[in-house]
């Protein structure tokens, strides 16, 4: 489902003397349907960068990055928009939504974008929010006012609202209590069971051990800067 081959990335800081910072070279990995692959490596090694490249958020400098047959490294914006709508979900660590929109609608939005009838989308959103222990009295409020842990769970609910064939998870269990951690791990296992390809970053070693089928250390993708 996800196929990465010889991927490279560098940042050029035009306003700081055009410094070029190579951050990745020769990255390669594969995630099949129903499989969960965890990225490891020390902080700053490029785990999040790689995830963002898969999502099309960062531009690749070279190589191939196939998601569901589309080469994200070369795709047109509208192809990536379609990919994100139909195929590729992303649970980031940050919740970025229009203020004042009720939580229920924030979670239902990915389904509405696919044309799901409003009632059906809201029902699915309600089920997920209930499962993630977000009190019902908060559903009509904007998540922008929620605590970090609550925002994280809203983000997860949003990411799991549609049964994406491919999922990117960036620290999905961080800042969660044991009960909610268990719910999230359950969601991930269900996604695997229905055949989703999952690429994730898990600092939580217990979670990593439980859901990941393989680990890939991104340190190997760090370019060797001539000393």
């Amino acid at each position, binding site marked *: 489902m996800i196929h990465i081959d010889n991927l490279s990335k560098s940042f050029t800081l035009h306003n700081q003397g055009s410094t070029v910072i190579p951050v990745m070279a020769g990255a390669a990995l594969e995630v099949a349907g129903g499989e969960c692959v965890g990225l490891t490596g020390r902080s700053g090694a490029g785990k999040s960068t790689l995830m963002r490249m898969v999502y099309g*958020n960062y531009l690749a400098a070279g190589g191939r990055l196939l998601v569901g047959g589309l080469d994200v490294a070369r795709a047109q914006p509208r192809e990536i928009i379609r990919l994100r709508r139909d195929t590729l979900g992303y649970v980031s660590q940050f919740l970025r939504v229009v203020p004042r929109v009720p939580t229920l609608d924030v979670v239902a939005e990915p389904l509405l974008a696919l044309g799901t009838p409003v009632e059906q989308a809201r029902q699915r959103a309600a089920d997920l929010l209930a499962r993630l222990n977000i009190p019902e009295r908060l559903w009509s409020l904007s998540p922008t006012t929620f605590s970090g842990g609550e925002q994280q769970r809203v983000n997860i609910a949003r990411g799991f609202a549609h049964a994406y064939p491919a999922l990117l998870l960036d620290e999905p269990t961080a800042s969660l209590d044991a009960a909610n951690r268990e719910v999230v791990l359950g969601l991930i296992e269900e996604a695997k069971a229905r055949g989703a390809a999952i690429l994730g970053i898990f600092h939580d070693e217990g979670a990593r051990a439980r859901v990941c089928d393989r680990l890939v250390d991104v340190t190997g993708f760090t370019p060797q800067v001539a000393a």
Partner: protein
Amino acid sequence: MTLMETMVATDRPLLKVEGLTKGYGPRIGCAGVTFDLWPGEVLGIVGESGSGKSTLLSCLAGHLRPDLGSIHYDGRDVLAMGETERRCLGRTDWAYVHQNPRDGLRMGVSAGGNVGERLMAIGARHYGEIRGKAVAWMDRVEIAADRVDDRPSAFSGGMQQRLQIARNLVTSPRLVFMDEPTGGLDVSVQARLLDLMRGLVRDLGLSVVIVTHDLAVVRLLAHRLMVMKSGHVVEQGLTDQVLDDPQHSYTQLLVSSVLQV
């Protein structure tokens, strides 16, 4: 139209712009602007004052005639159209939302008359039906039905802007041009309007070209982004990609200059 033709029709850009150039004497308004806009897509155009984004929008919407280049809407050559055809397009398939609602509304006409005008312009001649549609659209933009006979001058800025949107969308346009639609509004009102516009874009499958200098607005509203500087498009791509991984020095400067709250 056969199914095949429908499929072909939906698989082509709604708006195709090539090499659009407009000068003011020796000064460049915009130069060599090329892009495609697909059905259901929101394209944000950002840049500082004088970057040419407003000139570009005016050329696209037919308010200014470009010196060079071409604009095709749904396969039709817009610049070759007669004025009758173009203005007809402007009150049916296209809509234009002004920054200042006073420019886009008739302040001396009731809210219902403002919304109904485009219907009457295309031949609606049944008062009851026109009024019914006006009320339905006011409801959709969250203006109470009992305000239908009030003039916009009695409305708040946010309500005026929502009324302007209703007035524009009542004929179910496919392409909407917006010039700083959230400028001049309180932030809380801005959020409400953004949510409304997102919902309308999604539910009606609108294509939108929105000009703004507010990067937070485009991040939430636009699928794609074009960055303009001195009349040229210096960068374009997916909105979050351009904002999070800007490639051009000007975009990097623009993004890093945003004040954080």
